[in-house]
C-alpha cells in the first residue's frame, strides 16, 4: 500500500470522534487547527471591525483581513484587485449572473451550461435567461456523463455570450476540459464563468493560464471557514459588473439623489463582512500549500484506487462514475433507497451524502431519484475505506435479503 499523508492529527473533529470515517468532504471539508486558531486569534486578540476605525486595533484587523486578498491573489495567480470577497461560491456565481449577465445579455443571446452543474451555476442563469429572453443551452454529456470539447463545439455559436460550467462535478468527480473550452468560447467573444468549488480543494488553479473571465469557490470546501468565498474576475469585467447589494463600505460619495461606488473589488463588498472567516481563510490556503497539491493528489488517488479495488467484488451495488479523475465515488445499493442505505452507513460511523447533492439535473440524467456519494480527502486513511467498504457490504447484503 502506498504511503499516505499523516494529517489526521491536525483535525480536532477527528480527535473528538475517533470512530468517524468522514467521507462527506464534498458537502464541507473538516477544518484543521491552524484555521480554527486563526479564527480564535481574531476574536481573542483584535476582534473589531475592519475598514472603519482609525484606531490601532482596527488597523491591525484590517491589515489581517486585507492580507487574505494578497494571499488569495497569489494562490490563484491573479491581481489583488481582481479578488472579490463573497459569502461563498453560490453568492459569487449569483453576483456574475445578476450583476453582469443581466446587463450584458440581449434578447436571443445564448447561454451555455450543463447538466453536471450544481444548482448555483444553473439557476441564476435560468433566471436571467427568462428575464432577458435569452436561450439557455445544455452541452450534451457523453455516455459517461462527461462534458467534452467536441460536444461543447456543437452548442457554441456566434450568439453565445456566456458559458457557465463547473470545473469539477460535485457528483461525478469529472474534470471539465475547461481550458480548451475557454479558448473556444473566446473565439466567438463569449465570457466563461467557472464554478471551481469542487476543484480548488484538489487541484492547483491558475486563472491566468486558464484565461477564465470569472471563477468562484467557497472557503469551507477547502478546509476554510463557512460563510466565506472568493470570486475572481478579470478587472475589465469587474469594472463593468454592477453590485447586487448596496450599503455601507461599498460606496465612495453619497449625495441625496446619487452616489458613486468605490472601485472593484470593494464596490461588491457591503456591510460588515465575516471578518474572522476572511482572516482565517488565508490559514487554509497556507495549510494546503504547506502540504502541496501533488501530495494531496497522490494521497487521494491511492485511497481511491484502494476503495475501487475493494468495491468491485461486492454484488448488488452500482457505481456511476468508475472512471472519475477525482476521488468521488457516486453509487447506489441496488435494492435500497439511498436514505435507507444511509442509516446503515450512519451505524458504521461512516458519514457520506445521500440525496441529489444540489445537482438534480445530473441525478435525473443518471435516472436515479438520489445517489450515495463518498468523497475522499487528505484526512482519510485505509482504515476509513475499510470501514466504508464493510458498511457497503452490510447494506447490500441486508437489502438483498428483503
Amino acid at each position, binding site marked *: 500500500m502506498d504511503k499516505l499523508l499523516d494529517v489526521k492529527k491536525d483535525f480536532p473533529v477527528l480527535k473528538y470522534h475517533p470512530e468517524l470515517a468522514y467521507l462527506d468532504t464534498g458537502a464541507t471539508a473538516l477544518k484543521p487547527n491552524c484555521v480554527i486558531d486563526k479564527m480564535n486569534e481574531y476574536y481573542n486578540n483584535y476582534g473589531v471591525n475592519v475598514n472603519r476605525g482609525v484606531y490601532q486595533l482596527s488597523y491591525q484587523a484590517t491589515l489581517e483581513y486585507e492580507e487574505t486578498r494578497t494571499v488569495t491573489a497569489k494562490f490563484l495567480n491573479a491581481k489583488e484587485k481582481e479578488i472579490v470577497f463573497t459569502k461563498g461560491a453560490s453568492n459569487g456565481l449569483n453576483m456574475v449572473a445578476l450583476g453582469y449577465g443581466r446587463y450584458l445579455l440581449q434578447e436571443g443571446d445564448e447561454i451555455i451550461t450543463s447538466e453536471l452543474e450544481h444548482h448555483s451555476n444553473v439557476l441564476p442563469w435560468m433566471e436571467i435567461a427568462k428575464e432577458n429572453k435569452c436561450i439557455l443551452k445544455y452541452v450534451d454529456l457523453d455516455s459517461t456523463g462527461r462534458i467534452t470539447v467536441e460536444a461543447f463545439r456543437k452548442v457554441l455559436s456566434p450568439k453565445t455570450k456566456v458559458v457557465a460550467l463547473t470545473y469539477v462535478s460535485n457528483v461525478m468527480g469529472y474534470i471539465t476540459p475547461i481550458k480548451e473550452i475557454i479558448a473556444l468560447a473566446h473565439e466567438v467573444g463569449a465570457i466563461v464563468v467557472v464554478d471551481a468549488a469542487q476543484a480548488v480543494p484538489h487541484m492547483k488553479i491558475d486563472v491566468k493560464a486558464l484565461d477564465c473571465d470569472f471563477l468562484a469557490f467557497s472557503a469551507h470546501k477547502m478546509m476554510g471557514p463557512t460563510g466565506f468565498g472568493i470570486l475572481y474576475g478579470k478587472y475589465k469585467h469587474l469594472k463593468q459588473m454592477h453590485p447586487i447589494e448596496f450599503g455601507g463600505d461599498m460606496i465612495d460619495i453619497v449625495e441625496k439623489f446619487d452616489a458613486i461606488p468605490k472601485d472593484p473589488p470593494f464596490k461588491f463588498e457591503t456591510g460588515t463582512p465575516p471578518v474572522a472567516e476572511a482572516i482565517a481563510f488565508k490559514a487554509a490556503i497556507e495549510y494546503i500549500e504547506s502540504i502541496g497539491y501533488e501530495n494531496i493528489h497522490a494521497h487521494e488517488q491511492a485511497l481511491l484506487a484502494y476503495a475501487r479495488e475493494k468495491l468491485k467484488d461486492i454484488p448488488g451495488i452500482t457505481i456511476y462514475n468508475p472512471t472519475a479523475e477525482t476521488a468521488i465515488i457516486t453509487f447506489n445499493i441496488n435494492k435500497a*433507497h*439511498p*436514505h*435507507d442505505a*444511509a*442509516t446503515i452507513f*450512519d451505524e458504521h460511523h461512516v458519514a457520506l451524502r445521500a*440525496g441529489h447533492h444540489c445537482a438534480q439535473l445530473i441525478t435525473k440524467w443518471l435516472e436515479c*431519484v438520489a445517489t450515495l456519494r463518498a468523497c475522499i480527502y487528505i484526512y482519510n486513511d485505509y482504515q476509513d475505506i475499510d470501514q466504508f467498504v464493510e458498511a457497503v457490504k452490510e447494506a447490500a447484503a441486508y437489502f438483498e435479503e*428483503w
Partner: protein
Amino acid sequence: MQNHISDLYNQVINEHRKYPRNKGLIEGYKTLHLKNPSCGDDVTIQVNVKDNVIVDVRHDGTGCVICCSSASVMSEVLMGKTVEEANEIIDDFYELIKGNMPEDEDRLEDAIVYVNIHNFPPRAKCATLAWRAAGALLLGDEGEQEDE
C-alpha cells in the same frame, strides 16, 4: 445503547413495503402532494371524508422504505376514524416519533412499529411525511407543498 438497523426495519414495515395497502390515487378526492426535496421522498395523499368520517385514504409516490411503508400503515390506521380521532392519532404519532409514548398506545394500531425511529433522528422526516400530508388535508389544505 447501540442501535441496530433491524430495530428500524421490522416485519410490519417490511410487509407494508412489499404489499402496500390502499396504494394508487382516485380521481375526485381531496389531494395533497408533499415532498422532501433534500432526499427525494415524494408522496401524494388523498383523504375522502363523508359525514365527518374518513371513508378512504389513498397514497402514492416514491421514497425510502420508512416513508413509503409509513404512508401505507397510516392509510389503514386512519380509515374509519372521525376527523377528530384522526387528528388526535396524527398528533400521537408525532409524539411517538419524538420518543414519547402516547397515553393510549393501542389507538396507534400498527403505527406503533415506528417506536424506534427516535433512535434514528435523521429518519423522523421520512416517517412523518405522509402523516403531515394527511393532517394538512384534514385542516383543509390541498395541492402542492414542499416539506421543510
